[in-house]
């Protein structure tokens, strides 16, 4: 069965209410814009979204937020969307704020079958409250748990039909990590090529991580997001 699917609805069939969903991107850069839009059109609720931010006000994941589909957000910078603060104030959303490096590392740990790890980041700050602290060789660390999810929605530059992925410039960011840390991984790409067209030394995400591939229908340009 081919991993390449043409209908976004089919690609997102595996997303269910209550799921934890990883969403790639740093702001709009490298975000799976078509899949996010697909999600806003799907009837799901109580999602836990793991993403560096929750979009912008009324854009991307921000739409999902305003649709009250998000029960909890896990990220490092919600400041980019003022609606998140309002919802939080009203008790309509739970938030877990992590340092950006901890968010990235916890995803990697989840993908790599680790239970958690000790990081220096955050020691002695408000974000360490309630977290175990431990001294290792004279340095203080806090314990952070691995993150795993039901589904990952990511964006890459090219995929071959097996599912090998390469990325483009700073649109890489969280995407390769999220590809490793979910039960189902759905990727949207600019271009789909045949196996053998990507150089084996350059492949960033080997195909065993990828379940479903769709062609991106939305692209980030200088002028903003445009439909292809």
């Amino acid at each position: 069965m081919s991993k390449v699917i043409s209908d976004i609805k089919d690609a997102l069939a595996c997303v269910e209410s209550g799921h934890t969903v990883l969403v790639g991107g740093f702001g709009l850069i490298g975000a799976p814009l078509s899949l996010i839009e697909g999600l806003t059109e799907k009837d799901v609720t109580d999602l836990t979204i793991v993403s560096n931010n929750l979009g912008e006000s009324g854009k991307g994941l921000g739409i999902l937020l305003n649709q009250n589909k998000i029960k909890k957000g896990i990220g490092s910078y919600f400041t980019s969307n003022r609606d998140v603060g309002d919802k939080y104030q009203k008790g309509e959303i739970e938030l877990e704020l992590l340092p950006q490096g901890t968010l990235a590392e916890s995803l990697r740990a989840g993908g790599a079958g680790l239970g958690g790890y000790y990081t220096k980041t955050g020691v002695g700050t408000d974000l360490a409250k309630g977290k175990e602290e431990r001294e290792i060789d004279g340095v203080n660390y806090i314990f952070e748990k691995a993150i795993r999810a039901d589904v990952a929605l990511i964006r890459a530059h090219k995929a071959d039909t097996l599912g090998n992925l390469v990325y483009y410039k700073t649109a890489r960011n969280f995407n390769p990590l999220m590809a490793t840390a979910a039960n189902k991984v759905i990727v949207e790409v600019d271009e789909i090529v045949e196996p053998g067209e990507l150089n084996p030394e350059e492949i960033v995400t080997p195909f065993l991580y990828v379940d479903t591939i769709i062609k991106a229908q939305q692209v980030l340009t200088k002028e903003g997001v445009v439909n292809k």
Partner: protein
Amino acid sequence: MTSMNKTDMQHLIAKRVAAELEGPCVVNLGIGIPTLVAEYMDAGNIYMHTENGLLGVTDVEEADIDPNLVNAGKLPVGEAIGASYFNSSDSFAMIRGGHVDVAILGALQVDQIGVIANWAVPGKNIMGVGGAMDLLVGAKKVFVTMSHTSKDGSSKLLKECTYPITSTRSVDMIFTELAVFEVVDKQLKLVELMPGVTIEELRAKTEADFIH
């Protein structure tokens, strides 16, 4: 000090910080004044790292802007010769692992042992931290740039931070429009007064104790 508009003040600070950078080194620039430091650096010998996944950041001409090539402030940047791209965990491994020489950050407050607060304000929702805490624990040296006083004229160099701290680690140097400080043995040490600033003026505008 004669009065100065905000832009001139920011450039004054940025230029002074740039003079402190000795290449070859790898520098991570925060948002705000730090971004301006790039304009005054020796670009042939100082390499810029941005935590969203690029080592070798340069300026970009308007015509060459690529929406998928940005810095941590999501502003368009260019790609230096010898640049490389990597994912977020590899990028923060560089930071946390001590492989970035200098981080230049903004701050809301600095206390008199050099601990800074730059990510949250009490009474407001705690909504964003980004890479600040990682840079604080990981960079070999941390330089802080900020205006010396708040809009209400109160000192941002305090005996103790009243905002949530970013790390227990003391920064290495602090640059304001009034003075440059080094942190030595958990004490602020005045390195120099900025042009036209007197020690009396500095004392009047600084709550934190410092030595010189």
